């Protein structure tokens, strides 16, 4: 009896292989077709002067050389750096501080506020752009109304390069604030209260508690937030494309994603060239993310 049961189980296990493959098959096929095939193709085609419906010639690293020398591509990298500097630290600090505010709220009020600040997170970049184009509008924008009330002249927020960048940064921060605040709040809530109580007994000042308890305990939260923010900001497309039709005043809102898309649409460069520029950005993103990991240092590994 016991023997047949064991045999039954092991035959079940053998059958498990087939079942398991059947279960992972749809996702594997989809990832294979829509992620890995394009990736391999990108690696291969970046070394050619390939165009759709045309033959290709292997040209080695020529594309990469041209991309790196292209002034528009460099401009897009510079804009990207500006957006990262404008958005990431601000969003990080705001959400960290606001998480403390959320922690200090009464339960009911806290729940209401969490819901309210999260709503913009589910709004699309296109809709957010429409709203903020309206808010920054020269004639009918609410900001210019405010300036008029203060006796100031109207400002063309969307026409001046640095203000155009700022408009995008504000919109982006508005969209991401709820998500990041709640993640920060979760990280904060996860720190055992006993740490603070012990510190209090030892007479540690709030500042010391922040430095020695809060910050080290939230390492993983910080990594998650920074990587999300950087990856998102580096690939920003909807906002600049929607608010400024892409490049914006003096190319000030030309992000790498817009650069890649514009080249894809126009026939000025080969697809090989466009792909090469996208690959270079993957290297930038990867490098920045590993920088985050090394600087902050994770306690847990990603897998298991």
């Amino acid at each position, binding site marked *: 009896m016991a023997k047949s049961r064991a045999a039954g189980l092991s035959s079940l296990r053998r059958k*498990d*292989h087939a079942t*398991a493959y059947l*279960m992972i098959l749809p*996702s*594997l096929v*989809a*990832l294979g077709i*829509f*992620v*890995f095939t*394009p*990736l391999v*193709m990108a690696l291969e085609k970046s070394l050619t002067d390939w165009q759709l419906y045309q033959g290709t010639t292997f040209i080695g690293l020529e594309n990469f050389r041209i991309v790196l020398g292209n002034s528009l591509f460099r401009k897009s990298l510079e804009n990207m750096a500006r957006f990262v500097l404008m958005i990431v630290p601000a969003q990080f600090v705001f959400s960290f501080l*606001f998480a403390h*505010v959320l922690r*200090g*709220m009464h339960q009911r009020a806290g729940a209401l*506020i969490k*819901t*309210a600040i*999260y*709503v*913009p997170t*589910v*709004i699309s970049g*296109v*809709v957010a752009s*429409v*709203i903020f184009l*309206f808010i920054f*509008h020269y*004639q009918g*924008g*609410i900001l210019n*109304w405010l300036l008029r009330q203060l006796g100031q002249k109207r400002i063309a927020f969307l026409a001046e390069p640095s203000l155009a960048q700022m408009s995008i940064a504000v919109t982006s921060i*508005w969209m991401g604030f*709820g*998500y990041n605040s*709640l*993640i920060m*709040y*979760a*990280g904060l809530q*996860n720190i055992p209260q006993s740490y603070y109580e012990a510190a209090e007994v030892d007479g540690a000042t709030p500042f010391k508690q922040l430095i020695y308890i809060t910050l080290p305990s939230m390492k993983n939260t910080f990594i*998650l937030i920074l990587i999300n923010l950087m*990856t998102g900001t*580096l690939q920003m*497309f*909807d906002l600049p*494309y*929607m608010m400024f039709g892409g490049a914006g005043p003096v190319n000030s809102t030309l992000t*790498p994603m817009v650069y*890649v898309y514009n080249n*894809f649409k126009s026939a000025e460069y080969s697809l090989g060239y*466009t792909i090469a520029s*996208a*690959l270079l950005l*993957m290297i930038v993103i990867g490098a920045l993310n590993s920088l985050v990991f090394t600087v902050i240092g994770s306690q*847990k590994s990603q897998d298991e």
Partner: protein
Amino acid sequence: MQSELKRRGRPHRARTAFTVIAVIVTLFSVFPLLWMFVSSFKEGKEVLRANPLRFFPSQWITANFQKLAEDRTYPFWQAMRSTAFVSVSAALLSISINSMAAYAYARIEFTFKTLLWRLTVLSMYIPGLTILVTSFVVVNNLGLLDSYWVLILPGLASAYSIFFFRQFFLNMPMAVEEAALIDGASRFRIFYSIFIPNAKSPYVIMGTGAFLGYWNSFLWPAMTVTNQKYVQVMQVIRSYNNVYANNYGVVLAGSLLAALPPVLLFLVFQRYIVKGLMISGIK
């Protein structure tokens, strides 16, 4: 007496400060949405006579919404229907295939499991930007341009979603599953009758997430569909933004309607979504 007052006074003041900050921040989050809401009911000229002190329309009118319904070049409701079809079917398919894969990775031993799992996780680290152009080439080669397929299929498999489900399934107790296996239940049967009913929250969280991703997407549809039948609502909003530059109320009205399904879905499932965030924030 006085010292007690002092001692009580400080946390009280801190609490007041917190409340003030909370109210300001909440206003910052919510005001733009309310402003869009009221402005889309305003008459053309009043929209651009911004004055938050006259917050509500002097007269609530629906002309902006009628304009949307009448637009033949970029039919609004057609786009809403098409987007709803794409988002709902994609969300359902996505949670089906991802949770099924997650179950296998969490609960079954099989050859090459570690390798396949690593590959799946690896796909999370490939930025969309990198494969944007070649993804277009792939769907073009498959003859999928201008179809529901091209909108639905590419985003279905998500390593993040598989990862999330797997984490949940790993924590479910072994006993029931083992008993069912001994009784001769198939793996599929176990998955459907034991795992799915007990995993409501990851299904809601990942389903909502997929729906939002599809509903809000703009770049991919803009690259792959031009036929009116398949055009998605964000593409239409983008066109309105150009066409109705002088009649901004129409753009706002369209945006308001396009933003409603995500917001309503979030409000319905917020309990799950906030809980899900709490989990991912700790990991």
